[in-house]
């Protein structure tokens, strides 16, 4: 008559199913999307993370001396959607599975991940260019690594020199 009594009896037999947290540690799935983390060494400042961030949690700020950009994820605006990590071309942003984020109210505006991303330097003239971390060099600059590390101006010059030298060779061959 009361089908539910069976469930109750089983519950009693099986004992509590309560997770011991907070008195003991609990499980966290590996894929859990928690606090976002930036590996400043990998960042190329392409800005796609800021472009896809629906909550506007990711912001950049130029350093006063122009040596780099300050990257900031404000965790209290972040929606932990993971789009930034998904679209990051160098996988510099990563969603860790850290969810221990509760904090006191007075810290709510400063609760952010702040990393300083140094701008790259042209191997030739020393002008600031986009950062050129190893990951991106391997991916995009693999064919001409030395040229990839140059600023646009120096790159133009090397290209022109290169073409000129090729022309010279060709002229010599023709001869």
């Amino acid at each position, binding site marked *: 008559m*009361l*089908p539910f009594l069976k469930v109750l009896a089983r519950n009693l037999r099986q004992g509590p199913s309560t997770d011991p947290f907070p008195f003991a540690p609990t499980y966290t*799935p590996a894929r859990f999307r928690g606090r976002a983390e930036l590996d400043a060494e990998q960042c190329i400042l392409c800005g796609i993370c800021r472009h896809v961030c629906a909550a506007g949690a990711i912001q950049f700020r130029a350093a006063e001396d122009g040596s780099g950009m300050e990257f900031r994820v404000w965790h209290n605006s972040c929606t932990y959607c993971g789009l930034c990590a998904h679209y990051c071309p160098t996988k510099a942003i990563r969603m860790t599975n850290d969810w221990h984020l509760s904090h006191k109210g007075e810290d709510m505006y400063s609760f952010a991940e702040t990393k300083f991303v140094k701008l790259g330097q042209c191997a030739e003239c020393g002008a600031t260019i986009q950062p050129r971390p190893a990951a991106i060099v391997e991916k995009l600059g693999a064919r001409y690594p030395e040229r990839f590390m140059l600023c646009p101006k120096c790159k133009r010059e090397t290209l022109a020199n290169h073409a000129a030298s090729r022309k010279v060779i060709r002229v010599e061959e023709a001869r």
Partner: protein
Amino acid sequence: MSGTYTLPIGPLHVALEEPMYFDIKVKGETVESLGLSAGHVHRGMESLAMQRNYLQNVVLTERVCSLCSNSHPSTYCMAVENLAGIMVPERAQYLRVIADEVKRIASHLFNVGIMAHLVGFDSLFMHAMEVREIMQDVKEGVYGNRMNLGACTIGGVRYDIDAEMNAFIRGKLEELKPHLEEIYGIYTTDPLILKRTTGVGVLPEADARRYGVVGPVARASGIAYDVRKKTPYCTYKELNFDVQWDTKGDVHSRALVRLREAVDSVSLIEQCLEQMPEGPIELERFVEIPEGEAVARSEAPRGELFYYLRSDGSDTPHRLKWRVPTYMNWEALQTMMTGCQVADIPLIVNSIDPCISCTER
């Protein structure tokens, strides 16, 4: 106590998950009329959608509502794909169905669980929610969040299901199946549930058509309309399932329709895991969205979800409009509630599976 008086319910009422204001005229314990005042969760999301770019809108639409939070981005992506003529890889389509059905099981179990809570049957509520946790584990384990999966993106999905995840999901489904059956048995035979819910909040078919209700509410009133069958999307054409419907149109039959759909969803996920072909899960590169208009529809847990997209060729939608299932079902409460008892009000409201944040956007 026999005179007519007004019983305000809401906006911050314990029986409602969300703020909604009901102005209910009561005579003794009987409801005479009902007035609705909405807008407490109106967050102006349609205007936000017009300020965000297409990719940001995937996340924004997911936050329309957390209970059908996968249907929104997937239908939005479908609208964008229809407009741009993007063909989603087949594996991604299967993965989208899996995400949708996982959410459906969790959403339906939540609804029937809350129903038990509203009749004061807290043990059954806890049992249903505990069973729902199995699905929550799947969501957290596979997608990384218990509510907002973030599974879809334009042109595909973001999460693949490898062999290990496949086994994990199958294990969880095996664990779920006997529980679902048992819960269905309890809801069909428990005397208290029967006493409280049968014949309550009846919506006859004619009224259901007049109000244009959708989803389990329509199906429990004899309208066997399921978008997954009527206009198949993703891979529903290749999957084997029935439209669950009923003719009684009361609170109880709505709950049963939901439970049967949850059982179907388990089988749908299993079929997907079985049939899923190998291949890419996402487009290689992002496609430009041309100017034009497109419509996409899907069957969210609460019923037909509709997206209309108007693009002007820029990287933000010119107009993105969506109509959620609950939007159509609210007005039907007028018919369901007239003449019911005060004790039945929360039950009836819950039986349309109200999603206020969906409705008001």
